[in-house]
């Protein structure tokens, strides 16, 4: 080889490597592809620019087809355009580009689940990924967030009353998916595919019952009114006073230990007509949850139960309304969009009308005079506006108000001149008795990102009781006149500001945490008087006029943690501080829950929770009344504390038709109070109310069994409770434990709802309970009223009955059958429906109370039981459009 040739070869050899190293990230490339696989792109780059790609065919998939047209763009940019959408990472190793898959094993899907027709957000809907056996439920605002492995292809969403839906997920990326579900025609047989729903056994939460609104409206009604609280009373673990009156007792707790929330705002007295009906109009309710134990960390402030009622959002797309009239009340509801898909509103109202009908009859029976008046009614009204600012921000504003009132006024003009009465005066008097609630709520949902949801709430709630009288008297004969005015009011007000976060960092953790501050203002029983008489005689114009302010601060956190696929732990902590009159009470309450999945779809669950209540309800020992007063803790009466341990088993059958749960609980309550035996009922709670009460403790334990069928033509539930609950006060029954007034050993409830066809539906409910405790007299003796036997007015000495030990007897067993039939007819523009209900169908005489009756003729005395509700048919008619 000549020297020239050697030089040329040398240059060639030298140049070769340079040619190999001739490309870098910045070289400009031109590439043009039309629906061709990535593989072709790689081959073109290699051919034109000498860039060699190295990858493993098993891991990296280059078959994706792309269309691309770039001219003179930097290589790095072009590679990004090609590979980024498919999560392929290109990196330079030596002289080659090595392709690997991006290691992003997780992705989060979030969004809202709503009713496809109306946009109503669905609470507690299940979003489930069967392949990974992971799922979640939507929160109070219909929001869900689920973090999964990326190679998930679809999610299933389901909710009672709606057709389950499957959503195919896009191949990659975090996604916000709004899921719209279609309500089912409940006659369709739902073909449930395998593993579509998160089963009861897969939820860690126990002691919780959810009542679908459709069931509240389908069960038999009292006097034509469907009622959520009455329906809750037909569940195991929940007892009520006689015929539903007098408050609700959950697992041996007293009625003031239930926290009743309407859209997150506490309602202090949820009863109309002394407990016969609740203040919640079912037309406006979307969801009602009852927690009897295993309380999540975000709830606090009461010992025994949480009833979380959510109002409907309002139809975002169309206008709807409903008008109905029942045996005692008339109501309406109207909802619709103010701005389609952005703003919706819902408005409802209800008023009882019997007083308007019976006005004249009552006036003559009570002798109210020509200008007299009589009103006895209850009403409630709800309003709500929702506004969606953006997919990340929503605002809700709602208000609720209601009242029970009795107004009587008389007007008499006496001109009698007949002896001996000789009345000649004009007398006018009016009297009002009323109680009611007022609440307002403002909430703002903000979605920070796929994993973090927040809600800021401001709410206000008030319960008041008021009675007042006016009295005018003027004599025609002499200068004598009277003008009196008196008023008694009691009130409790609450103002809350809080922020809650919902955070789903990874599939095995669902974290909730938040902060809240509540200001309570107690005004327990103020009197106010005015006297413009000829001879005024007022001891004072105002009495007990003071307010007490208490501030509650709460910090909570909980994590639903999947330790292993079979073992879930829900660990939470609720820390609360209560500041009142320079005293500070604090508590740290653990909230622990555990769920272990056993073979054959059984789950074993256990929970341990502490609950704390710094405010008390002063009530007499007989029954709960609107005059009961809310008071804060004092140095003598400390906040109540309960500890509850629950253990149970749950299962949903394979065909998803039946849900079964068996739970046992043991609960202790400290610092419960009641009036001493001699304290007069309805004492206004003056500054020293705590001198009139005694402090003790309570205990309850038992077992609850619930079998539910939530789907199909026939739905319903069967519940059985075996429970004990007692109280212990040093001053009662010589300090021995005695049965609590709501203690009923056995309770059996059966409710069945059957839909024949699209027009006819029937339902029946049967309840049985063994007797409740009763205090009865154990001796009789002579009383005395006058000191001297020579008194001209000496009456026959009264007979006094000596009461025995508290609650040592039992009433007779109580049972009752209720029936109802509903006929619905769908017309072109509207749907009408008739409901005929029969309360106490076989006229069982259940005791409301007992008393001793004297029969002087037969010289006999005997115990009599009084029943107030015999068989009661009722009818209601409603029109929906």
């Amino acid at each position, binding site marked *: 080889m000549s020297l020239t040739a050697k030089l040329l070869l040398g240059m060639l050899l030298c140049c070769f490597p340079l040619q190999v190293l001739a490309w870098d990230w910045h070289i400009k490339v031109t590439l043009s592809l039309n629906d061709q696989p990535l593989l072709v792109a790689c081959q073109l780059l290699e051919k034109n620019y000498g860039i060699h790609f190295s990858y493993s065919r098993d891991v990296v998939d280059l078959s994706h087809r792309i269309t691309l047209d770039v001219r003179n763009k930097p290589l790095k940019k072009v590679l990004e355009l090609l590979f980024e959408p498919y999560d392929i990472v290109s990196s330079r190793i030596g002289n080659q580009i090595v392709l690997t898959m991006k290691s992003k094993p997780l992705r989060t899907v979030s969004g809202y689940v709503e009713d496809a027709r109306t946009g109503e957000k669905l609470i507690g809907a299940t979003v489930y990924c069967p392949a990974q056996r992971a799922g979640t439920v939507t929160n109070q605002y219909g929001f869900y967030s689920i973090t999964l492995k990326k190679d998930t292809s679809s999610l299933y969403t389901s909710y009672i009353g709606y057709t389950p839906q499957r959503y195919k997920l896009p191949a990659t990326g975090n996604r916000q998916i709004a899921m719209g579900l279609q309500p089912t025609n409940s006659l369709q047989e739902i073909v449930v595919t395998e593993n579509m729903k998160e089963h009861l056994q897969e939820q860690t939460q126990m002691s919780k019952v959810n009542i679908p609104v459709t069931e509240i409206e389908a069960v038999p009604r009292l006097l034509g009114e469907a009622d959520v609280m009455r329906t809750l009373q037909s569940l195991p673990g929940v007892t009520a006073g006689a015929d539903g009156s007098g408050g609700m007792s959950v697992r041996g707790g007293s009625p003031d230990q239930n926290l009743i929330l309407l859209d997150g705002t506490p309602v202090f007295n949820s009863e109309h007509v002394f407990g016969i009906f609740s203040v919640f109009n079912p037309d406006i309710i979307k969801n009602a949850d009852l927690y009897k134990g295993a309380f999540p960390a975000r709830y606090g402030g009461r010992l025994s139960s949480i009833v979380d009622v959510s109002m409907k959002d309002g139809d975002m797309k169309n206008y709807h309304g409903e008008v109905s009239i029942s045996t005692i009340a008339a109501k309406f509801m109207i909802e619709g969009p103010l701005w389609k898909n952005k703003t919706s509103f819902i408005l409802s109202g209800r008023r009882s009308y019997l007083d308007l009908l019976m006005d004249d009859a009552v006036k003559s029976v009570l002798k109210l005079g020509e200008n007299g008046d009589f009103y006895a009614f209850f009403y409630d009204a709800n309003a709500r506006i929702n506004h969606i600012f953006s997919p990340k921000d929503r605002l809700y504003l709602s208000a609720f108000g209601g009242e029970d009132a009795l107004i009587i006024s008389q007007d008499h003009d006496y001109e009698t001149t007949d002896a001996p009465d000789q009345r000649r005066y004009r007398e006018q008097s009016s009297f009002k008795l009323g109680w009611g609630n007022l609440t307002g709520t403002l909430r703002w949902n903000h979605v920070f990102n796929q994993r973090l949801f927040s809600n800021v709430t401001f709410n206000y709630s008030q319960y008041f009781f008021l009675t007042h009288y006016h009295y005018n008297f003027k004599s025609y004969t002499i200068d004598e006149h009277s003008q009196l005015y008196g008023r008694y009011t009691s009130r409790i007000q609450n103002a809350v500001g809080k922020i809650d976060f919902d955070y789903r960092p990874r599939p095995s953790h669902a974290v909730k945490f938040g902060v809240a501050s509540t200001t309570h203002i107690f005004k327990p029983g103020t009197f106010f008087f005015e006297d413009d008489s000829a001879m005024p005689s007022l001891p004072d114009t105002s009495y007990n006029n003071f307010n007490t302010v208490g501030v509650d601060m709460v910090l909570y956190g909980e994590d639903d943690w999947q330790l292993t696929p079979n073992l879930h732990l829900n660990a939470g902590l609720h820390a609360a501080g209560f500041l009142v009159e320079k005293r500070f009470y604090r508590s740290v309450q653990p909230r622990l829950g555990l769920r272990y999945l056993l073979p054959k779809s059984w789950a074993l669950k256990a929970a341990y929770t502490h609950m704390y209540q710094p405010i008390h309800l002063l009530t007499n020992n007989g029954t709960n009344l609107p005059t009961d007063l809310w008071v804060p803790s004092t140095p003598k009466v400390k906040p109540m504390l309960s500890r509850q341990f629950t253990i149970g088993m749950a299962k949903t059958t394979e065909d998803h038709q039946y849900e079964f749960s068996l739970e046992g609980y043991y609960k202790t309550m400290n610092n419960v109070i009641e009036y001493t035996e001699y304290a007069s009922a309805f004492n206004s709670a003056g500054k020293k109310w705590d001198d009139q009460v005694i402090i003790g403790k309570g205990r309850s334990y038992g077992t609850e069994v619930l079998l539910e069928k939530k789907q199909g033509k026939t739905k319903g539930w069967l519940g059985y409770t075996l429970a004990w609950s007692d109280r212990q006060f040093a001053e009662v029954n010589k300090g021995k434990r005695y049965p609590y007034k709501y203690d009923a050993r056995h309770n059996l409830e059966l409710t069945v709802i059957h839909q024949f066809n699209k027009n006819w539906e029937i339902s029946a409910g049967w309840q049985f309970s063994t007797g409740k405790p009763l205090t009865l007299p154990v001796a009789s003796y002579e009383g005395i009223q006058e000191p001297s036997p020579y008194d001209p007015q000496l009456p026959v000495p009264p007979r006094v*009955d000596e009461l025995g030990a508290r609650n040592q007897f039992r009433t007779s067993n109580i049972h009752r059958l209720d029936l109802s039939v509903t006929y619905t007819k769908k017309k072109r523009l509207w749907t009408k429906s008739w409901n005929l209900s029969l309360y106490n169908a076989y006229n069982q005489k259940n005791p409301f109370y007992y008393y001793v009756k004297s029969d002087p003729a037969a010289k006999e005395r005997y115990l009599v039981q009084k029943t107030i509700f015999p068989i009661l048919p009722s009818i209601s008619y409603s029109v929906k459009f």
Partner: protein
Amino acid sequence: MRFIIVYAMGLVMLLAACDKEARLNLPYEGDKIVLNTFLLVDSVAYIRVTKSEPVVSSNGPEFTELVNAQVTILENGQPFSAVHHQVINGRGYFVSDSAIRPGKIYTVTAAATGLTAVTATDSIPAQPEVSGLFAQKTASQLNFTLKDPGNVINYYRIHIYAADSTDGAIRPLSRIEYRLDPSFNNNFADIISDSYYQDLVVKDERISGKSIVFVLQTSKPVTYKYMIAEVVGLTEQGYRYLKSLDDQQDNQEEDNILAQPVKVYSNVANGYGIVAGMYAKRITCKVKE
């Protein structure tokens, strides 16, 4: 306030309530001595000793008197007076020989064969300071002034009598029914339910230390010539007994749906009944024409 709720519930529950005899066996605590007396200043003591009975008794309205009981009265711990048994208006009483004196503490005991002996103690309250009784013919109101001492808790009982003058002395004829202004006893419902009473007990909660004009509304216009107002000072024990007795009597009425069982107060150890001191003051006036 109780009456308001009872009234309201009664109105609202115009549904047909029905009664049924209950098949519950009421037990009996056993026979005990019942000791009843109100010790009124300047009067001898009339002590009634009877025996208790089962609740569902068929003995009729009268209780068995323990005629052979041994009854003693002590004044400030010392023997006070002998008692002798006397039948007055068909009923038997143990009557003391001496009159009750103000400012003392009395202990009464009763024992009978076969039954546990009982005892009870009470003091004598202060005499109420009332004056200035006034009423006018055809009026529906009358008034008097009561001055309440502020340092103790006082309890009062009010009776009003229509009276006539015979032999220069004003004697009571019959009791007049009246009601108090609701600002005194918080019984708002009286106004609307047209309730009048022959006998009311009042605690000095609202009037402690004050001199107040009590204006009473009568059920019928004033037509009589004279009037007597008797204000009786009560002790705490007497007040509790009379108030709880009144509450229990209200519960006996069939339509009282509240029917919370009421425990009648008793200060008799090992038995039932009440021993309470009373001090009455009567003021009179001629009704203005």
